[in-house]
């Protein structure tokens, strides 16, 4: 094979862009806070695909992209934990988690 595959870096980056756009659409439009969180996870995964693809095709020996992707996964797990706790707290005080109703911090 030796790098002669028909699938190159641009294919992976295109896939990453499409997945990121889908996640962005979800973040912008969904009303439920947990659905917004799921869309955020999609965007994290798009970034991870791009990083691992760069790591595979541009710096195959240094593995920098894979290392950053690993840290991103850890940070995403921490983010999901705290965000779920906040969602549960909002559900207890507002009896609902639709983000277009929770606007008491808006000026």
């Amino acid at each position, binding site marked *: *094979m*030796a*790098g002669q*595959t*028909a*699938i190159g*870096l641009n*294919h*992976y*980056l*295109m*896939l990453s*862009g499409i*997945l*990121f*756009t*889908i*996640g*962005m*659409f*979800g973040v*912008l*439009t*969904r*009303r*439920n806070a*947990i*659905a917004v*969180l*799921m869309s955020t*996870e*999609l965007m994290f*995964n798009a970034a991870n*695909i791009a990083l*691992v693809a760069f*790591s*595979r*095709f*541009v710096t*195959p*020996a240094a593995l920098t992209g*894979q*290392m950053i992707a690993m*840290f991103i*996964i*850890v*940070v*995403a*797990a*921490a*983010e*999901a*934990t*705290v965000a*779920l*706790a906040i969602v*549960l*707290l909002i559900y*207890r005080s507002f009896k609902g988690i639709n983000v*277009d109703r929770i606007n008491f911090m808006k000026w």
Partner: protein
Amino acid sequence: MTDVSLTSVTFYILSFCIIAGGIFTVSSRNLFHSAVFLVFTLFSVAGMFVMLNAYLLAAIQVLIYVGAVAMLMIFGVMLTTQLTNVRLRHVNEQAWPALAVCGFFLAFIVYGLWDTPFQVVKADAPVNTSHALGTLLMTKYVLPFEVVSLLLLAALVGAVVIAKKD
């Protein structure tokens, strides 16, 4: 030659799974279906990592995302949402402008990627990446490693404090 076409076919199947799973995740009315499609998408992304010779990352993806984060999401869905009333409006009133913005964004990305010359290195993929990653984690990246462990501890304590009944 068959190897190349096999790679292409696998790539397109996995891409189709990722994109279809993502679209169903953001568009499904039932939030539990969204979570299941999210798990499907995350599994396909793990398959994509295998295609990119990142075997350790694929394992981590399955363990942490599919095992922990997606389960957390499903717990959140079960604890907060009434799944029987799925006839509610599930998108806000900005859906069409958001669709236009996302379309422009995607067109921008595709236009930017179309003929950008990346410095692609023609090299074989390293075979034993887990060993190299472990070595890097303990030598070059030991400071981010410790910081990220501190961040996990802070997130753990913070989640307990926030969600505690007072």
